[in-house]
């Protein structure tokens, strides 16, 4: 699992663009890091450790803990069993809070929260749009964000996953400079997505905060 902000951080550490990162190191529609087909290892795990440790994603920072939040924001944590070959120290000494602080998860949780707000907004719009064949077909019939060719499993599901490419287009249209800093780029990415959703809402209809819908299992 790797969100666009995490892809950006790892890309900067490696000195490449998010476009190149997604093409080289991501899988499953650009949503996860690539794993070796033979050894099952993350592409960044080497004999000397993780190549992107300083910018490792939240899920790696949390391991061996798993974290869930419910609708009220209340957190739950659980511990995964130790993976074969993992050289990390496992123990029950200390507190979860201490562990999280040591792993530097705070900014990652904050970004997850903000992208979560965007995600909920997208779901509400999809509810309102009624995606079951009630929309028009474009001329040209593009079938996905990656282009008219049949998408592979490795092509990003959405162009918004590629922050560098997204911001290049957004900033060019606005006549502003692309931010150099990671935090600034993530903030502008969220703002750009917000404007995109504003435009959709103007045509689909404003998404209510709490639409009535059936609960799904």
């Amino acid at each position, binding site marked *: *699992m*790797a*969100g*666009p902000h*995490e892809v950006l951080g790892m890309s900067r550490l490696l000195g490449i663009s998010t476009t190149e990162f997604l093409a080289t190191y991501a899988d*499953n*529609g*650009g*949503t*996860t890091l690539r*794993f070796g*087909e033979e050894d*099952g290892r993350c592409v960044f795990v080497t004999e000397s450790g993780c190549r992107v440790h300083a910018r490792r994603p*939240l899920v790696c920072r*949390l391991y061996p803990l*798993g*974290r*869930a939040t*419910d*609708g*009220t924001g209340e957190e*739950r944590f*659980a511990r*995964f069993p130790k993976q074969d070959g993992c050289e990390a120290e496992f123990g029950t000494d200390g507190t979860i809070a201490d562990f999280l602080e040591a792993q530097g998860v705070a900014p990652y949780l904050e970004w*997850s929260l903000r*992208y*979560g707000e*965007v*995600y*909920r907004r*997208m*779901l*509400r719009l*999809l509810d309102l*749009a*009624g*995606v079951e064949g*009630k*929309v*028009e*077909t*474009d001329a040209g019939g*593009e*079938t*996905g*964000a990656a282009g008219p060719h049949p998408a592979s499993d490795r092509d*990003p*599901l*959405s162009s*918004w*996953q590629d922050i560098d490419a997204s911001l290049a287009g957004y900033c060019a249209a606005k006549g502003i400079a692309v931010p150099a800093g990671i935090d600034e780029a993530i903030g502008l990415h969220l703002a750009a997505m917000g404007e995109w959703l504003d435009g*959709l809402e*103007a*045509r*689909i209809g404003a998404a209510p*905060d*709490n*639409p009535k*819908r059936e609960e*799904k299992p």
Partner: protein
Amino acid sequence: MGKQTAGKTVTRREIIKLAGTAAAFCTSFGFLQGSQAGRTVQDKHLQQDKHITQHKWERAEIKWYSGATLLHSSAIPATVAKHLESDVSATVEIKLFRSGQMLRNLGTIQGKH
């Protein structure tokens, strides 16, 4: 027909991008379903089912039955088992094809089950 509001239309292309982006976020952030305010939960590689973390399975088998009679049993390929084991959200679909055309989808296997 397009989804129209006040004479404006949203295209299939835009809806596909919206759905694709939501799907990508769902997977890459670990957001679970629920669009009502305050209902979206996040599960970052967590125990969706406690037995996954407490009783990790070690072997997966395919079994042939005739009625209730077990005819044959065989372990599923290691690559499939490894995929199912990799993530509680990992799935494998079994589909029947002839001449490149899918005849039937037999269903989806989830490693968490």
